[in-house]
């Protein structure tokens, strides 16, 4: 679209705008649909962004961490822990290995058993945090060596439970983006219907305009501008309401997990501002196509 056409679309022509009479229900329908769709799009965007953040975080944590659990009788636990640390330090691809302190282990169990857990009196296994180098270690070789030298050691590379969660978070992100596409498509469909209704209701106006020498582009512009501005205004209202809704949601917290992190972070708050522009583009394309088709059908 040329700069001149954009300028005419934005600035408009008061005289040309009056040529098509204001139409009640199509105006209200377009405004309502645009506002509702923009409202839903804000939530779909928030869901998608939050899912993306979660997937990235989980994937990052999954990437280079593992846990070695020493399930040994209390009198052998320290010796097996030391043996395991020795094995890990000798294993190529292991960047660091560190046995968690009693306080750290108690903190991990605190959400389930409370802060005053008497760890000494419980058969709690010793945990060793393992961090890999970029090249990683030979998992099968490490397991075999641990099996031989530390009988109570169980290597957990987290993938068993983290990978499905990361996959689910990524699916959720795709679902959010797909929802935005569906919302855009539904809005285009509704605006096309409204534009067609307006064009049909103004058939006589169009006939008069053509009789006095109006070109198709002039007639189409009168309708396209109207619907584009309605969509822009409707989407603007919907986005403001949607952002207020997201802002009112509980802030992200460790306890609340994923549900409380469903919002925008930092620059992410600016992303919904693109929705009214996209809505206006959708309305422009939908109305242009509808007008071109209908005017083209006239003799």
């Amino acid at each position, binding site marked *: 679209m040329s700069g001149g056409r954009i300028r005419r679309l934005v600035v408009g022509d008061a*005289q*040309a705008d*009056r*040529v098509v*009479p204001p139409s009640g229900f199509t105006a209200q329908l377009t405004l309502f649909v645009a506002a509702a769709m923009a409202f839903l799009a804000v939530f779909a965007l928030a869901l998608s962004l939050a899912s993306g953040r979660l997937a990235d975080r989980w994937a990052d944590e999954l990437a280079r961490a593992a846990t070695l659990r020493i399930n040994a009788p209390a009198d052998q636990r320290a010796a097996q822990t030391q043996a395991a640390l020795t094995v890990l330090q000798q294993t190529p691809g292991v960047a660091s290995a560190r046995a968690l302190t009693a306080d750290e282990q108690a903190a991990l169990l605190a959400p389930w058993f409370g802060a005053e857990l008497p760890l000494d009196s419980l058969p709690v296994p010793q945990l060793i945090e393992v961090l890999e180098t970029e090249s990683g270690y030979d998992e099968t070789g490490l397991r075999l060596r641990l099996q031989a030298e530390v009988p109570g050691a169980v290597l957990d590379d987290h993938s068993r439970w983290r990978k499905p969660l990361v996959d689910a978070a990524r699916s959720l992100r795709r679902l959010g983006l797909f929802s935005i596409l569906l919302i855009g498509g539904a809005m285009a469909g509704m605006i096309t219907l409204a534009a067609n209704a307006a064009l049909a209701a103004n058939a*006589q*106006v169009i*006939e*008069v*305009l*053509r*009789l*006095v*020498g*109006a*070109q*198709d*582009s*002039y007639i189409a512009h009168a309708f396209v501008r109207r619907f584009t501005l309605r969509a822009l205004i409707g989407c603007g209202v919907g986005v403001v309401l949607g952002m207020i809704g997201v802002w009112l949601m509980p802030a992200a917290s460790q306890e609340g997990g994923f549900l409380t992190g469903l919002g925008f972070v930092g620059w992410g708050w600016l992303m919904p501002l693109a929705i009214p522009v996209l809505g206006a583009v959708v309305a422009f394309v939908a109305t242009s196509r509808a007008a071109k088709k209908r005017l083209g059908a006239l*003799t």
Partner: protein
Amino acid sequence: MIELDNVGYNYGGGELLTNVSAQLSPGSFHFLTGPSGAGKTTLLKLCYGALSPTSGRVRAFNMDVKGLDRNQMALLRRRIGVVHQDCRFLDHLPVKENIALPLTVAGKDLSQEQDNLQELLNWVGLSERAHANPPELSGGERQRAALARAVILSPEVIIADEPTGNVDWEMSQRLLQLLVELNRMGKTILVATHDLALIRAAKNQVQTRVLRISDKRLQLAGADL
């Protein structure tokens, strides 16, 4: 200026016009007459491109009307002012804006056309009714407003379809006077009417030719008019 060459037109299988030939030369004044349903309005529509002939050829300003694309057709209609029998106004706009409609669609700056617009309103005697909406106008006022709209772009040809069909004798004479004045300014005029008294009155003022549609064909009317 407008030339019909062996033009035929079928309405859904039925033949309405056949082998119609005529030429509207610049500055001429033609009347088109004939019984109701003979095809007067159809012939006018063929002249300004609202209908396409099923046979023959219509040429306007040396262009084959059938070969014009939609944009060219719109430009052609700015060169031919048309007064419709039912006037066809946009009822939500006041008379002044309806008259200015051809200027608006042609992209003219109305603020620079206000003097011309006012002059035109004075000429057709509607300056007092400029801000009325079309449904508030009488039959004669509507026809005068339609005539003003037809001439505002200063077209070379003016076509009027039964302009005096719904007005009294006095008003029809006033409308005729406006058409005669336009003809004297050099405009080509084509008026479809079955009002023979109007034709006789015009003959007393300007040189006219009278065409009659009879049995699907166009004939030059005799001296009985």
